[in-house]
């Protein structure tokens, strides 16, 4: 049991030490952070071995809240799902920590960076290890907090602070729904414990809630559907699905290592993890599953369309993350949780690789992030180039790279589902074409062609940076070969059987997806290597502008939500606060002062006046006595 506790405790200890003594440790901060997370990785591997041998853990460590019928503990649930998530988090965290030694070298907030990364690692691990909903929620918020702290790592930049605030606020919207879901769970089940909730879930299958009861109407909604949808709202925020995806591209203001850690491999996957963990409830609510599937599918397509035209290297990868998260969500909506988690793992590998490699490029070009000012880097940065290509190919889903296996698992399930699933299956395939296109567009623009950058002699990044890249490249290839869905099969209900006449897709999909990927790569090659003037000619139409401006979602939100709220806040400040409240408070003071100014004239200093007052007073007192 101790080794399980140590897994999150080691990064927590690193955070505490770096938090308290960071200003003394400074440039040596990585000596605290890296060993802590590497040890955590070691223990996670031992845990994985234990679990694969059949050992499961469900234990309460510490009773946190004990109040009448509300009991909550800090506890662990370790099954296969937890085990693979532990590996993912610790591996990516270790690699990012090592990478940051080189990337953040010389940065003013070096120790602070590692402290927050350690805090994040701790929070994510506790989230994954949780065995009750409150712990899940608490660490859900904690990872959001760490994301906020790390996006604004360079807090002197206003855009970074704004991006961090945006991330936190948008997440908050989702978390509000999540919180309501947790409340509803407690109301329905009387407990927040996973075991209790999941075993009792089927008993509440037909229970409904009257949503219009408070206004005297009648609209009965299944409680489980409501819980599922509310929890999903949290996932929409955390995993950047439509319509709460807007924070993720702006989160690229943070340093690239944390874009890799938080916004590619771990925090954003918390939503998917939650869907998988709570699958018992979702399985009992077909409506919620359909909603999840639709949201995921639309997100996948939508984000890919935006990524086609972006010019910031990190934003392209960010939208790619949103798109791939859409795939995972869609998988959970189809009931193929194992496939979704499988894609989560492979995506963690190759997306982290893509981010870190992009970071390597940015580092070599002294902070340049715009595609239009890059080019011809291949001869100067071979390691970065080849690792990037590996990652891109994995993303495009080409055999035998990891992405192929996981993406196909999802697409096959989509077609097996029949009906609506088939539509999304085709949408998924179209998105594959776009995915391949935009990622290879990036490669061809950055590494091939003439150099448009100001840096004349860029050189390859140091080993601390290229080593993680190479490790991730290897992982991007081999992760797909592990039979992860089978490993997870004991956690989830069996993968649904294919619908009528859909079995043929099992052989057809791999072929179709590889073709789609290759087609995308070919298009990119044509557009950017063979005929570079073609893109400019096509970049005129309305579709281009919609894509380039991210379908104006940010602008719509600004008009619909941000401006009215800001105006209301201003109005409240000016009228309520300044005029009414301050006016009342000051008014009381002014009233007192005016009365005092009037009343002090009684003190004339003339004793005969005082004597007169006394006489009158005596008279009054006696008359009261006399007449009452």
């Amino acid at each position, binding site marked *: 049991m101790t080794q399980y506790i140590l897994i999150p405790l080691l990064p927590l200890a690193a955070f505490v030490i770096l938090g308290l003594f960071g200003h003394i440790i400074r440039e040596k901060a990585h000596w605290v952070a890296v060993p802590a997370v590497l040890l955590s990785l070691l223990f996670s591997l031992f845990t994985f071995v234990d679990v694969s041998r059949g050992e499961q853990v469900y234990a309460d460590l510490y009773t946190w809240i004990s109040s009448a019928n509300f009991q909550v503990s800090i506890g662990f649930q370790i099954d296969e799902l937890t085990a693979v998530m532990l590996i993912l988090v610790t591996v990516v965290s270790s690699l990012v920590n090592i990478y940051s030694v080189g990337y953040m070298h010389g940065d003013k907030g070096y120790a602070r960076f590692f402290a927050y990364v350690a805090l994040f690692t701790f929070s994510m691990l506790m989230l994954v290890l949780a065995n009750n909903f409150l712990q899940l929620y608490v660490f859900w918020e904690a990872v959001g907090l760490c994301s906020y702290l790390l996006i604004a790592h360079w807090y002197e930049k206003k855009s970074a602070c704004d991006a961090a605030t945006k991330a936190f606020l948008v997440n908050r919207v989702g978390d509000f729904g999540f919180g309501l879901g947790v409340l509803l769970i407690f109301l329905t089940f009387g407990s927040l414990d996973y075991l209790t909730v999941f075993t009792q879930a089927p008993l509440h299958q037909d229970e409904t809630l009257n949503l219009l009861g408070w206004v005297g109407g009648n609209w009965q909604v299944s409680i489980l559907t409501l819980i599922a949808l509310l929890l999903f709202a949290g996932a929409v925020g955390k995993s950047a699905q439509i319509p709460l995806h807007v924070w993720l591209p702006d989160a690229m203001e943070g340093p690239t290592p944390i874009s890799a850690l938080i916004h590619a491999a771990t925090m954003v996957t918390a939503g998917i993890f939650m869907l998988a963990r709570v699958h018992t409830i979702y399985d009992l609510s077909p409506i919620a599953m359909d909603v999840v599937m639709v949201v995921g599918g639309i997100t996948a397509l939508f984000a890919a369309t935006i990524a086609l035209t972006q010019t910031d290297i990190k934003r392209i990868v960010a939208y790619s993350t949103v798109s791939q998260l859409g795939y995972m969500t869609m998988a959970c909506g189809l009931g193929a949780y194992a496939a979704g988690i499988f894609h989560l793992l492979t995506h963690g590998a190759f997306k982290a690789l893509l981010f870190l490699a992009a970071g390597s490029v940015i580092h070599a070009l002294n902070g340049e992030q715009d595609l239009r000012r890059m080019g011809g880097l291949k001869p100067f940065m071979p390691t970065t180039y080849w690792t990037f290509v590996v990652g891109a190919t994995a993303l495009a889903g080409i055999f035998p790279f990891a992405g192929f296996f996981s993406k196909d698992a999802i697409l096959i399930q989509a077609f097996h589902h029949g009906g609506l699933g088939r539509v999304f299956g085709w949408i998924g395939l179209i998105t594959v074409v776009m995915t391949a296109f935009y990622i290879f567009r990036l490669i061809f623009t950055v590494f091939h062609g003439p150099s448009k950058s100001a840096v004349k002699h860029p050189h390859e990044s140091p080993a601390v940076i290229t080593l993680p890249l190479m490790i991730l490249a290897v992982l991007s290839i081999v992760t797909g070969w592990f039979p992860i869905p089978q490993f997870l099969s004991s956690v989830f209900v069996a993968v649904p059987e294919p619908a009528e006449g859909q079995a043929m897709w099992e052989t057809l999909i791999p072929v179709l997806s590889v073709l789609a990927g290759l087609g995308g790569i070919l298009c990119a090659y044509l557009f950017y290597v063979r005929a570079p003037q073609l893109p400019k000619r096509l970049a005129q139409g309305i579709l281009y502008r919609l894509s380039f401006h991210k379908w104006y979602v940010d602008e719509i939100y600004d008009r619909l939500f941000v401006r009215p709220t800001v105006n209301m806040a201003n109005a409240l400040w000016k009228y309520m606060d300044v005029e009414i409240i301050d006016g009342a408070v000051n008014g009381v003071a002014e009233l007192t002062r005016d009365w005092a100014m009037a009343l002090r*004239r009684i*003190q*004339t*200093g003339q004793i*005969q006046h005082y*004597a007169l007052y006394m006489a009158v007073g005596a008279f009054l007192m006696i008359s009261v006595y006399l007449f009452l």
Partner: protein
Amino acid sequence: MIPLSYYLALSSIIFVIGLVGVLIRRNLIIILLSIELMFNAANINFVAFSHYLQAITGQVFVFFVMTVAAAEVAIGLAIIIALYRGRATINVEEISLMKW
């Protein structure tokens, strides 16, 4: 026999005259004299009651009142002298340092 109420009425009249004297005169000494008037009015009251209730306590109390009145006069006049030394006036209207 003179009824008690006559004595009491007399006493009240003297008392009020003394009170009015305190309120309307500007000379400090006259004010103190008016206070003496009030003392005397009280004394008449006491003695009258002592006679009509056939208790001797009233007279004893008058004894004490006179003692206190004497002490008060001594101090009061000393204050007036000190005041005159400081301000060269014993007109109450001019002594108003404690004005707002």
